[in-house]
């Protein structure tokens, strides 16, 4: 199970045209795979194309080149997403997300099975909707029958999963703290039972002590629900802590991909080396056993 590939990104390129006759290659022939149940980290400086890749995977941008293939395993589970007629569609077990035709055919399934969490939870949650509505809305749109009776119960269940209690259900996003909002975003994403969760700098705008809480939550939820997780960050320490494998992006190119431990112990590419060397590391010691205050 562990080695089964879920997402195969092949030579993905994306260009921006910020002005007439100006071309910026935000992503340049990037290839990597994400396996089932794996946490894959993507690091790089700002402007290196991390978010662009996330957006391409989520079909927010249409890439200018390359393929993103999404392997769908279990047919049984997907059945609910198709009409009876579409038997042929059901049989397909790999979908090129970048192909508009294929995307349209599998749209509902893809939209449910891939979920994204953004950095800025204050702007990615609609300020005029209650938390309950925010979590229940995608389920309503996808016509997912609530397993736990009502949509509200479902919303509460997923909030609990994300470490919040039911009291926030009737609140608005602005009444919550940054950490709580990010938990709501996680609950919203997980409620769709995604196979792939993409998180675009989910902890960058949070406080240090809250960052640790959210990282723990990610690990725990991932263990529990077994989704694949694409974790995008510029914080190397967080990536080292969370991820199984890490890809290093530099100016739109993927310069190194390696298991996390290997990458940090002996980085190959010069850019990775600078990155590893520039982690500010305080050498500290907690007090010895037996010390008292």
């Amino acid at each position: 199970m562990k080695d089964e590939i879920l997402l195969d990104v092949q030579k993905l390129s994306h260009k921006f045209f910020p002005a007439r006759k100006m071309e910026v290659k935000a992503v340049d022939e990037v290839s990597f795979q994400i396996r089932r149940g794996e946490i894959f980290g993507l690091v790089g400086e700002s402007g290196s194309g991390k978010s662009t890749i996330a957006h391409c995977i989520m079909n927010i941008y249409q890439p200018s080149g390359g393929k993103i293939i999404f392997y769908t395993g279990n047919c049984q589970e997907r059945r609910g997403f198709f009409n009876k007629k579409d038997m042929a569609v059901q049989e397909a077990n790999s979908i090129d997300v970048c192909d508009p035709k294929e995307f349209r055919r599998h749209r509902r399934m893809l939209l449910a099975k891939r979920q994204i969490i953004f950095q800025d939870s204050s702007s990615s949650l609609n300020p005029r909707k209650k938390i309950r509505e925010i979590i229940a809305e995608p389920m309503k749109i996808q016509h997912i029958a609530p397993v736990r009776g009502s949509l509200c119960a479902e919303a509460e269940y997923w909030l609990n999963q994300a470490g919040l209690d039911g009291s926030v259900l009737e609140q608005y996003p602005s009444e919550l703290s940054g950490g709580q909002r990010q938990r709501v975003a996680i609950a919203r994403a997980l409620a769709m039972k995604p196979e792939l969760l993409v998180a675009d700098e989910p902890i960058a705008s949070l406080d240090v002590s809250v960052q640790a809480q959210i990282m723990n939550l990610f690990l725990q939820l991932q263990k529990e629900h077994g989704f694949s997780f694409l974790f995008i960050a510029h914080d190397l320490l967080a990536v080292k802590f969370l991820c199984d494998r890490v890809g290093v992006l530099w100016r739109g190119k993927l310069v190194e991909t390696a298991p996390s431990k290997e990458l940090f112990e002996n980085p190959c590419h010069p850019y990775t080396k600078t990155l590893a060397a520039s982690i500010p590391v305080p050498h500290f010691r907690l007090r010895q056993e037996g010390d008292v205050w």
Partner: protein
Amino acid sequence: MSELLEVKDLSVSFDTPQGEAQAVRDVSFSLKSGEVLAVVGESGCGKSVLCKTVMKLLPPSAKIKSGSILVNGTDIIGYQERDMCKLRGKLFSMVFQDPMASLNPSIPVGKQVAEAVKIHQKGLSKKEIYKRAEELMRLTGIACPEEHMKWYPHQFSGGMRQRTVMAIALAGNPKIVFADEPTTALDVAVQAQILDMFKKLQKKLGMAVVFVTHDLGVAARIADRIAVMYAGKIVETGTAEEIFYDARHPYTLGLLRSLPMYAEPKGELYTIPGMPPSPLSLPKGDAFACRNEYALKIDYEEEPPMFCISDTHYAATWLLDKRAPKLPAPYR
């Protein structure tokens, strides 16, 4: 060494529609010349307000409720805007978090540096001013300043912008530079470069720096002394070594323990439970008590005073009181 800056019992609060927000509460600290003090804390703990208070850059809704700010022995707490103008830039200067926002987008960077030079060195010809600006930009590590001076801020990268801001801050040869999260908005690799530049310049020019950050790693890289702030108070202060090797306040310990760098990958990170209290409604007693697993009964009743651990090391927690039970400290 004499005390260059001494802040005593400073309290600042903001008037908000929801009531009074106590941003800084009874903060005292001192700064010797040529020393780097890092102020560490989470957002909203009052660390930037503290810097802006000393420079009197607060918005009108803020009120200094009590305290004194002694600069070379003179109290500047009652100074009006006119007097402050003479001190700003010359005595102290400031670098802000977002280098894009802190440069005027419609003026070439060279002119912005020159403007700062012009205020502080009167009677220089235009040519001399620009020469000095060029010098400052070279000092902060901008390659070919004569060329880059004509550029606008949006043509610069984040690191270069922050270097320009630094050049502006240095224009009046300040004795103290307040740096408000100057590396937070930058990438890791650039962050390291800027920190090194900062440290090098600080040594070379012998200025004192108050470095505000939320990142203990950054603090470790630059600071001589560290003050940890929580809910508007300094809860622990000491030399960098004392903080990193002999932290006494449970909050400092919690912060150190929650760093992912030494955690076992895929293990569980230590987390401080709960969230910081809102400055609008601070609890009675120690503000940290409800998140403190070692909280004593007295923590909910009375705020702890600063306990002395060594000449340089102080912490505000009842655990250091003589009467406190001898609890085992956390260890790894």
